């Protein structure tokens, strides 16, 4: 799986997503893309722009606004031998399809005693930061990561945006991919292939003093904080989870065992969060290696407000991460 960094192109996260979809469509004729405004409109966030003209309406399918209906159709098509990529425009609308995702996609394999599997990929935009207010700023990766039978991916880099879809399509089981809206315009290197299996976490920065565990839209913030801390001679290790279900516990624990400290940065609300789950895993498996209490930096317990300054205050931010690290290491000035 490891690919040498022989060739690397710089591209935006959005272009990387599109390149991944194009490669999927080219490589397997069973693959098709279905979702609201993926065709004529070009995708709510412009990810699928131009694909309808290139692949035609049999493979790029605009759906009506019926999340439960078209997600269910995607599940049925997957059962029937196709490899659908279903785009739920945003995670916010995915609740309307939750019955199909939770009661059908996640359960069919088990309920049928292993006879039927659902090789479906569902992509959805997620996250806050665009002043889209309370109903359009959700981070519900955790909701889906709770469900046995599903796999949940959170590409945080351009390279993962480029290749995770292909990896997901190789998987015989339903995979959900969360694409954070604040990453779409970010630019970065894309290699010749994925850096690791889709279920593996990747250490984005090596360090010895403290482990920062994060995923998706929070990764750039964490890396920024890590750089700021480096100036203060604090060596931070950054774990990019990439896959939220199943969690790569081995990588998490190995890092915490090395640094003895962990902070989890998670854009979900703190209560009942994935951060809580990660913290519990660390307690269960690495308690005696801890040198400080595990900390969580999560979104404040409030529906995401519209005004910029309040939205900013609600979400995890770089200075918060820096402060938390210093507090934990007792190096506050």
């Amino acid at each position: 799986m490891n690919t040498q960094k022989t060739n690397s192109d710089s591209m935006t996260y959005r272009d990387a997503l599109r390149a991944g979809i194009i490669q999927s469509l080219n490589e397997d004729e069973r693959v098709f893309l279905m979702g609201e405004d993926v065709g004529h409109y070009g995708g709510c966030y412009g990810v699928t722009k131009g694909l309808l003209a290139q692949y035609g309406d049999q493979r790029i399918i605009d759906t009506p606004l019926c999340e439960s209906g078209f997600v269910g159709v995607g599940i049925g098509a997957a059962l029937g031998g196709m490899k659908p990529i279903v785009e739920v425009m945003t995670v916010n609308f995915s609740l309307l399809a939750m019955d199909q995702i939770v009661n059908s996609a996640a359960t069919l394999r088990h309920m049928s005693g292993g006879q039927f599997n659902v090789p479906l990929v569902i992509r959805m935009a997620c996250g806050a930061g665009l002043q889209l207010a309370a109903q359009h700023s959700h981070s519900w990766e955790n909701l889906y990561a709770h469900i046995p039978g599903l796999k949940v991916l959170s590409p945080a880099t351009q390279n993962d945006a480029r290749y995770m879809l292909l990896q997901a399509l190789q998987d015989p089981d339903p995979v959900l991919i969360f694409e954070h809206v604040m990453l779409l315009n970010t630019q970065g290197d894309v290699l010749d292939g994925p850096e690791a299996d889709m279920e593996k976490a990747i250490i984005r920065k090596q360090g010895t003093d403290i482990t920062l565990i994060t995923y998706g839209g929070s990764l750039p913030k964490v890396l920024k904080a890590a750089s700021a801390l480096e100036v203060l001679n604090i060596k931070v290790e950054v774990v990019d989870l990439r896959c939220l279900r199943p969690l790569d516990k081995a990588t998490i624990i190995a890092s915490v065992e090395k640094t003895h400290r962990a902070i989890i940065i998670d854009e979900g609300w703190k209560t009942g969060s994935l951060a809580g789950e990660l913290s519990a895993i660390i307690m269960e498996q690495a308690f005696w290696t801890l040198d400080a209490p595990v900390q969580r930096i999560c979104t404040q317990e409030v529906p995401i407000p519209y005004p910029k300054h309040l939205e900013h205050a609600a979400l995890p931010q770089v200075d918060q991460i820096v402060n938390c690290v210093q507090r934990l290491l007792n190096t506050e000035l």
Partner: protein
Amino acid sequence: MTKSIDITMPSLGSDMTEGMLVEWLIKVGDKVKHGDVIAVLETQKGAIDMEVYQDGTITQLLVQPLKNVPVGTVLARLKESEAAPSSLNPRYQNPLSKTKQHSDKLNFDQPGMASVEQHLYQPQQKSLTAVQTHTSRHTVNASPIARKMANEQQLNLSIVRGTGFNDAVILKDIEAFINEPNNQGSLTTNDDKLANMRSAIAKAMSQSKRDIPHFYLSSDITINKAQQWLQQTNQDKDPQQQILLIALLLKAIAITLTKYPGLNGFYHKDRFEPVNEINIANVISLRTGGVVVPLIQNVDQLSLHQIMQALRDMTLRSRSLETGKRLRSSELSGASITITNMGERGADRVFGIIYPPQVAIIGLGKVKKVAQVYGEKINVGEQLTVCLSADHRVVDGMLAAKFLNSLAKKLQYPEQL
């Protein structure tokens, strides 16, 4: 209204950070009275009976026997009796109580011990409030890995300075401590309890010598009359009923101390706080090595007979390994002054090291027959050397000399003791 009271793992000395509950002697629903022994604890100093300090009914037992828990851990709860007086028995009043009235755990705050401990080890730059918070909690903040490491090294966490989150002792503090050659005495390489005791003694004594400006005075005291009086008194008595010189000495010291309160108390936070009661600790050497220092309370108010009983009982229970009887928790803390008697072991005199936060220790040498000059005559008589080690921050030589002089006079009138 009845109040629920936490019964916590007591700190029985500045060097005690944890203890093992060996056995509950009560069960939920039992009515207990102040002073009842409710549990047996295993500590670095052997098995100890744990007393309860309130009257009430036991409502919960929270810790199972044979579990090691840090000092301050709530072991049980009781519901205070309706009639229980709201004020505490003055015997248990803490010299720091003014600053600690808010604490529910007041009864378990050992006079000065933990506080001085903390005072000694708190990094200088830390604020006073931080010290107070720390002392009122009794437990040492330490990270899991630091605890694990300390446990492996048999290291008492309370002597390690914490630099982590919330000033917790963290891994690097342990490593730094271990790598510091001066601290080797605090580390033990095996799990021998005696070694632990050794380190506790080492720590307390090192701290004392480091921080307390000792000065020493001694006085050869004639005890002819005391010995004669004892001989008369002990005539026709069973050995069990006889009174020994040490009881006489203790009583004399106690009475003298009532006139010299400057030697009887605690030095804490740069000031001396006298203690009203004369609670004298008595160093008892263990045959297995090491010492314990149980105390006798209100010695000035006890009869010689009572003092003798207390001494016998205490010696027996101090050597619990051999006797199966144990000291009580209250007997190991709260002493306001200490006596060390090396005379029985043949030493002429002993200049003791003060056990913080006390400010004085009295050393008793062996009884010798000496030539005593009375006017122009020489007589054969008996004397012993009493040595006083005192804290110069608190007392000066003049006072110390007067104390010894006064003690010598007291011993000339044994019938009054």
